[in-house]
């Protein structure tokens, strides 16, 4: 685990292995590990050491059913024996859970797993292969002590896992440690008390690993680095920030060295602070901010689900025939058959099994309900900003309030400068939308074509997920940036036109709102191309606009 203290790069591989060691010492107290890594030899090598965790291990996948997870009616056994047989779920059988594709876990499963984790009887390894914004749900991450990222570790830097010697027992922690760690957490903007408890438990486990009866400074160092550093949401305000980046951080000592020098039990906060800071990757804060926003937007409640699961509300099952498409509701079928069993057995005494007749078959039915999505596409260019961006924002806010009342999803696209961005993917969180909108700056050119294109893409994606999208385009119509980012009015207008045509061809509903100071002819033409109603933004009457939109979109 020794390495040259050249850069601020901590020993990632060593830490990753250490985290696993600590977890195997206190699986319940540390909850588990959130491992962010693509599948590959590095991850495989790390996973090879997993067998130090209590057996058996159970692999879960994001679409696992409750029956598998918690146990349920075992139908074949129930039918064979005639008595209700319940199968035990994975949760009851395996103390170690491995969640694959963790970034795809649905809110429902996250909630159920979180409840399981709160019993402190399991440890969970969440394998997150997400790229970019995709990541493990925060509720789940909060219950796992270690957040590891194996990305960027070359295979050559890895070592195969040492056979773990079994360590048992527990260690005490010094009295002032709680105080110290709590202060640290507060300085790094960590609110969740679980993080602090995990740090203390990790320090204890580390002490056990080194055969100590009481955790010392070195243990707390390592624990804080492993648990607190990846959760940091802010850097503590200190005067010597500049000095810190130039010098190698003081945390580079290995545990053994530290143990040698750590004979006095005073815990210098400064040192600990530096240690955590050193373990924070330099770009973490930026990444974190982006990820956090995207995540909370994505966890948009039970509304945003994929097509496969988006079956709407189940209706009572209905009698019918199996036509190859309908799904049999087995339990309902058995219920329908149940009352007739004595009679049928009487008629057919040779067959003592459950007798199901075609008339008993019950089919599953769902009521499809498609939610509406409003894609607000806002022109934030300089010309628009000069004109009436603020007013347009006010109008969108009014529309948002209405969207809330109808429980619509909303998404926000803004275009300015040389391109368009999705500021907010489809969500039901209006507070989020409003914040993003308020923070939207104005300035730059008007890449209208890109705006329409990005909005169309978003709308089509949403459509494939079973939503009914409508684009609400707010612009002054003075396109001056072409699709390729070059300036020029003629090309820009032409590109905008073709983008509008493509949107129309894709069958997207749209509404164009002119937010210029004077109604723009070109924009009216564009609206016609898109097959969209054209509404000039009425002066200082956002309420009227909202009425117009409601009228136009129905």
């Amino acid at each position, binding site marked *: 685990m020794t390495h040259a203290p050249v850069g601020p790069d901590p020993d990632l591989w060593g830490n990753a292995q250490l985290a696993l060691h600590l977890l195997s010492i206190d699986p319940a*107290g540390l909850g588990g590990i959130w491992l962010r890594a693509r599948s590959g030899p590095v991850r495989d090598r790390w996973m090879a050491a997993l067998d130090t965790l209590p057996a058996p291990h159970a692999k879960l996948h994001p679409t696992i059913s*409750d029956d598998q997870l918690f146990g349920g009616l075992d139908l074949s056994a*129930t039918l064979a024996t*005639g*008595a*209700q047989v319940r199968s035990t779920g994975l949760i009851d059988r395996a103390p170690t859970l491995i969640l694959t594709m963790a970034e795809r876990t649905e*809110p*429902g499963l996250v*909630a*159920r797993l979180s*409840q399981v984790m*709160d019993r*402190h009887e399991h440890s969970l390894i969440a394998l997150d292969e997400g790229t970019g914004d995709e990541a493990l749900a*925060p*509720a789940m991450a*909060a219950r796992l002590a270690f957040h590891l990222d194996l990305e960027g570790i070359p295979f050559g830097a890895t070592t195969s896992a040492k056979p773990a010697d079994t360590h048992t027992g*527990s260690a005490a922690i010094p009295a002032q440690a*709680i*105080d110290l*760690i*709590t*202060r640290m*957490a*507060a300085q790094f903007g960590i*609110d*969740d*008390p*679980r993080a*602090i*408890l995990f740090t*203390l438990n990790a320090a204890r486990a580390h002490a056990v690993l080194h055969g100590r009866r009481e955790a010392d400074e070195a243990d707390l160092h390592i624990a804080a680095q492993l648990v607190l550093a990846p959760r940091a949401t802010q850097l503590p305000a200190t005067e010597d920030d500049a000095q810190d980046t130039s010098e190698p951080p003081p945390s580079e000592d290995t545990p053994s060295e530290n143990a040698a020098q750590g004979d006095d039990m005073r815990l210098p906060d400064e040192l600990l602070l530096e240690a955590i800071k050193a373990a924070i990757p330099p770009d973490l804060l930026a990444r974190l901010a982006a990820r956090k926003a995207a995540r*909370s937007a994505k*966890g*948009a*409640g*039970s*509304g945003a689900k994929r097509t496969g699961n988006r079956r709407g*509300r*189940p209706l*009572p099952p209905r009698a019918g025939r199996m036509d190859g498409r309908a799904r049999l509701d087995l*339990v*309902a079928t*058995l*219920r*329908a058959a*149940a*009352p*007739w*069993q*004595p*009679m049928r057995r009487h008629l057919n005494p040779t067959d003592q099994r*459950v007798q199901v007749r075609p008339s008993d078959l019950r089919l599953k039915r769902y009521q499809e309900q498609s939610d509406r999505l409003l894609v607000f596409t806002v022109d934030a260019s300089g010309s628009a900003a000069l004109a009436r961006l603020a007013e347009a924002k006010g109008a969108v*806010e009014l529309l948002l*309030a209405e969207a*809330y009342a109808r429980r619509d999803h909303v998404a926000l696209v803004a275009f300015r400068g040389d391109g368009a961005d999705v500021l907010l993917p489809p969500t*039901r*969180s*209006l*507070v989020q939308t*409003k914040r993003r909108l308020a923070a939207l700056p104005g300035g730059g050119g008007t890449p209208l074509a890109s705006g329409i294109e990005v909005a169309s893409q978003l709308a089509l994606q949403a459509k494939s997920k079973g939503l009914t999208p409508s684009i609400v385009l707010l612009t002054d119509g003075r396109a001056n940036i072409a699709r390729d980012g070059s300036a020029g009015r003629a090309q820009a207008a032409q590109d905008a036109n073709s983008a509008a045509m493509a949107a129309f061809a894709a069958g997207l509903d749209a509404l164009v709102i002119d937010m210029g100071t004077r109604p723009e002819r070109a924009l009216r033409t564009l609206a016609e191309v898109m097959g969209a109603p054209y509404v000039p933004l009425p002066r200082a009457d956002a309420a009227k606009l909202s009425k117009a939109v409601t009228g136009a979109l129905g």
Partner: protein
Amino acid sequence: MTAPFPFSAIVGQDEMKRAMILTAIDPTIGGVLVFGDRGTGKSTAVRGLAALLPPIMAIPGCPVNSARMADVPDWATVPKAAPTETPTPVIDLPLGATEDRVVGALDIEKALTRGEKAFEAGLLARANRGYLYIDEVNLLEDHIVDLLLDVAQSGENVVEREGLSIRHPARFVLVGSGNPEEGELRPQLLDRFGLSVDVASPTDIDTRIEVITRRDAFERNRKTFMATWAKEDAKIRDQILAARDLLPKVKTPKDVLRRCAELCIALGSDGLRGELTLLKTGRALAAWRGDTKLADRHLREIAPSALRHRLRRDPLDEAGSGTRVQRLVEEVIPA
């Protein structure tokens, strides 16, 4: 199931704790909704409350925890027995629960083996006279919410399915918790909760240290910790019982009633449920404090919890409804 963290050992979060105690004094207040960040002790408080509640007298084996033999529903075969002391039921409604599990359904075992049409009681039956707890209530599937709405209102579960026609009492205190960032709650369900509480992480460092110290002690040395706090829990339990006795004696002066109404009109809350909850909660608080007369100070104290979720919501108001209620309370009921 391991013993839950003691209710009395929860540091701070007074509004949440008070709201839960008040529903224990008067279950007709109609439940508590706790919304807040992760790791603020929402679930801890609910589970702790279960251990704190005074026991009820119930017929052993009765699916709806009836107090008298005469109340046992006729569809249940319960051997004749005298009521015994049982802990107040606190039933967890997991997010993935099916409709069958929630309302009850045909007992498949009896149907298959004996061809009998028997009813297997669901979670709603088991929660009768107790608490029904839904963690992450804002993520609950819509069709389960629909079921709950009706039952929470009428206090009766009516099952009309698979040839069964059964009704049984289902009067429970609905406790929900969730994180608003992960999804909104339907306004209809929101309205069914009597009280609503927002919790946040403590900002003060000493409070945080205290939280961690207690939690750590609980995890390390459970027995000693439980023994230490059992006394405190018992004290609260006795106080709840005393308040229950006092509750029918609490008088409601006309002018205070008037102020209830004024407050609700000023807030523009929908329907009359706001006034009723305000009144009931106020009386429960008076009883909790040992007062025999409802006074303005009681209203002031509980108005935010009772009314915050009943405002016509302005989803874009970031100040939060609590602040709005507080402001209006200051106006209508000056100190």
